């Protein structure tokens, strides 16, 4: 279980974005988080992805408290949580081919490709030709497909989707969400952050709505 209790987080001193928030992600379940932009959904996603240190409160990963964040948390812990960001164009190094983007976590953690790359790129519908291209040569939707494959390539136990579909069209949205639902069915705990209520109703098991 990935959980956060009584989180207080902010960017500027004295102005917390989240104040006393609790959330739990269970393996195999999808929690939807809805709310207008600026309500702190993405901040919560960043904390759960261990990329942002909260001011106070605790984050627990599979029963063990997480005390450090970003680089300082062990690689094993941070790679057990996959993240997909809102803007695929900002979330990839513009110099890399899509293939390098998808493989990056394998390279960084010195793991071998046991066929997972082929499996995932097929599932997100990226052809060999598309994988050879660089980000400026593909559409936002195609890039986000690569980003989802990258987030899943280390078989994370949890997946954080921070507004994963807000830049992509309906058909790509359906494809990405179907894949995330299938990994959730295989036991991954998913946080689906979105401002689209209709989408979350079709995607998540429970939806938390923030004002």
């Amino acid at each position, binding site marked *: 279980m990935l959980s956060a209790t009584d989180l207080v987080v902010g960017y500027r001193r004295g102005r917390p974005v989240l104040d006393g928030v609790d959330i739990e992600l269970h393996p195999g379940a999808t929690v939807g988080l809805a709310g*207008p*932009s*600026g309500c702190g959904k993405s901040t919560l996603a960043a904390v759960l992805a261990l990329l942002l240190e909260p001011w106070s409160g605790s984050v627990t990963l599979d029963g063990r408290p997480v005390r450090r964040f970003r680089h300082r948390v062990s690689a094993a812990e941070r790679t057990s949580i996959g993240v997909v960001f*809102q*803007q695929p164009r900002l979330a990839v190094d513009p110099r890399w081919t899509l293939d390098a983007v998808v493989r990056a976590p394998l390279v960084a953690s010195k793991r071998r490709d046991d066929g997972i790359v082929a499996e995932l790129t097929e599932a997100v*519908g990226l*052809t060999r030709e*598309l994988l050879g291209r660089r980000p400026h040569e593909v*559409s*936002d*939707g*195609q890039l986000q497909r690569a980003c989802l494959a990258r987030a899943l390539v280390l078989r994370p136990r949890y997946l954080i989707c921070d*507004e994963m579909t*807000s*830049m*992509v*069209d*309906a*058909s*790509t*949205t*359906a*494809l990405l*969400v*179907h894949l995330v639902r299938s990994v959730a069915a295989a036991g991954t705990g998913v946080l689906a952050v979105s*401002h*689209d*209520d*209709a*989408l979350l*109703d*079709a*995607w998540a098991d429970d939806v938390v709505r923030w004002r």
Partner: protein
Amino acid sequence: MTDTRVTTTSAEDAATSAGTRQPASALTVDRLSVRFLLGRKGKAGVVHAATDVSLRLRRGRVLALVGESGCGKSVLTSALLGLLPANAQTRGRALLHGPGDDLDLCTAPERSMSRQVRGRRIGLVPQSAASHLTPVRTARAQLAETVRQLRGTTLRGTTLRGAASRGDVDGLAERAGLSPAALDAYPHELSGGMAQRVGFALALAGEPDVLLADEPTTGLDRVLVDHVTDGLAAAAAEGTAVLLITHDLAAARRVADDAAVMYAGRIVEAGPAGEVFADPWHPYTRGLLGALPDGGFEPIPGHPPELTDVPGGCAFCARVPDPPGPPCNGDPEPVAVGGRLIAGHVPC
């Protein structure tokens, strides 16, 4: 100059001068094609961004142009505003109907585009308006400057700047759904939705006949999307012709009077929005609607073709062979059937 204009027929002239209430065309796009030559003289490939696109924008109506990202729909805004890059070529016409004579936007000289068309007769509501604002000045200062520039009169080539009263600027902001108090903020203090409304107010500043909204709702949440689309509908209600270019079908369904569906650079289906969305004829339109969470949530298999390499014949059947419905006759050119346009998949 003369070869860029087309004399209108006297009947149309009479209709405009008499100020008849029937929805008059504000902009007619007539078999417009845009292509980009890559490399030196196109040796590295040719991007067929738009092929034989015909659209008619009427005053008081919203036309939604929908399609997946990368289908070529956004290139139309650049073409209509004369902002295509140096490697682009066009074919066909885009006539901006004015009192008396029409202006072909594809061939009009830069001078008329900058002094008469951009901002004055055609307003642009951009995608992510925040990046269109100067970070060091307040929204009010930028809006007031735009009003001064656009409402000034041109006399023998020199622009006499008009005055922009506080009331003018506040009025514009209110029409765009923005409280006048928010105008005193700097762009970084504005949320995405507010910045989008400032962008909308800037587009309205010149009181244009035509509004082009290029993916104005990308990245906004549903409430803000509704604000933006309501704003476009309100502008149309005041007599503006609106072109909403979007991949967000929910937004298009909410506001459009007419709809056109674009695939691989071509219009594959067009008609009154209610009919097109309730009873789509083209398998691509059905696929788009079926991908919505409340429409079945099934993705369309494959990818849209590269615009450098568009298959001949029906491009959609090259992606999804033998889609359900009436058989495809393979003709990429849309034909008129019962007040609607449909390419290839003509209903029996």
